[in-house]
């Protein structure tokens, strides 16, 4: 039996590790941002989800729509983080 030993080509990853944000118990009276990356159809999906959430909560929620390109500018993300209590994003195709 013969053998060859080779080096694994897959590089180690050096990621950061963040804790997710604390979730509210209730979305009433909060502002929810919808972030669309301008890819076709994403706005339709987000707006529909926003409408359904509004209906579910009985109207006591502020849904705001945001559009940017992909990837989003940091200024857009900061604006969303500053002005919204929660964000729903559509970042892919």
């Amino acid at each position, binding site marked *: 039996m013969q053998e060859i030993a080779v080096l694994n080509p897959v*590089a180690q*990853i050096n990621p950061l590790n963040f*804790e997710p944000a604390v*979730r509210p118990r209730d979305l009433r009276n909060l502002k929810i941002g919808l972030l669309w990356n301008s890819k076709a159809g994403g706005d339709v999906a987000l707006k529909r989800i926003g409408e*359904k959430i509004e209906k579910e909560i009985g109207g006591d929620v502020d849904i705001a729509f945001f559009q940017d390109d992909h990837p989003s500018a940091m200024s857009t993300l900061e604006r969303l983080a500053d002005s919204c209590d929660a964000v729903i994003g559509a970042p892919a*195709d």
Partner: protein
Amino acid sequence: MIEIEKRGVPTVVVVTRPFVEDAKVTAEMFGMPHLSLAVLDMNTCSNVDDEAIYKAADAVTSQVLGGLLGTESREQASARQTEIKPQYQVETFRGNDKLKAWEAFNAHFLDKGWGDGFPLIAPTEEKVNEMLKGTKRSPDEIITVLQPGMGLATVKAIAINAVMAGCQPKHLPVLIAAVQAMNEPEFQLRIVAMSTGPHTPMLVVNGPIAKELDINSGRGALGPGKESASNTVLGRAVRLILMNIGHAYLNSMDMDTLGSPNKYSMCIAENEKDSPWKPYHVSRGHTSDESTVTVFSVEAQFGIFDTKNSTPEGILTSFAGTINSIGTAFTRSWFIPRRRSDCAVLLSPAHARAIAAAGWDKEDVQEYLYRESRLPVKLFKNTEQMERLKPSCRWILDAPDDMLLPIVGAQDWYHIFVVGGPGGKSSFTAGVGRAITRKIEA
């Protein structure tokens, strides 16, 4: 979305089914493996009617709500990043003879997704140590943390993939410079590596190293064959590096819809000997005795066939009429935010000499292409980019349908090289991002 979560705002990411793995892998790579996802039960939201999207969106609303709501309060933790010491695992393969052991290695690497489908050279310790002699750098030196997957691009990790591709030690400095260039923010490697389009890096080498390494700049430079052996292995190594160090694997981060043979390997040298102009890297401020690698992203490639014309206007009219294609990403980038699409104009020596004989230089070529390669507004209005216009370009929505617009944002988006053998056949490539030139150092 992770940037928003980092700022203490809960998020949910809505994706379609094919992008779930991509989302999970990306979330892990960027530090938030617990990112909340809601999965639309459809392939994409493009090219479908609204009713189909409504149905899928209705079905995920409870998932979205579940991702936004919580029952516990906990303290916000700050980011943690641990110092990683580079390590290189050893994999052992056995067989009745060395050939069978090698076949077992190839089968395993292919099965794991670590290869490009062609047989690989085994990256034994011996071969990698030999490869490392191609540079003065220390094996554990971290060249960069390579996007999109934030892999540690140590010299040794690059060397391992270079061996697999069939490179020799003398190729290693080119690869190190190429990795540095690709990871520059303006190159937009995340888009190149993760797109649903067939984007791939192309290397263009200038300076004395091209001859030292026998990088083909003449006939067949972009194709296979013994004349392009260095071209082939260098381009191949770049692809393996993107996969195994950048973690841009198909279906997890690389979401390319159709793929392209260009993704196997794209590397050329400029034909400085047959060029009537100064070399590209000299026009970028380098001296002629320096060697550089320029990295372009390539989504589209066109062949330009003109064996008739001998004037600049004639030849470049053939160019302009070939490259003005609405169906490519590069023609629609200049009017959307934060986008640039640098193009490589690969003039055959015959075309270049005819253009230069009329007293034209590279800037004249850029200016002509910018002026003449245009498309009517009607075609732009038919594209999704109209939803993404930057404020200064919103006037396009009200422009007459027959108004002609340029296909690039400025004439310097066209980068002129002389490449190829005899004949009136040139080429043109375009992608996203800025072309980045990097000096090659030992």
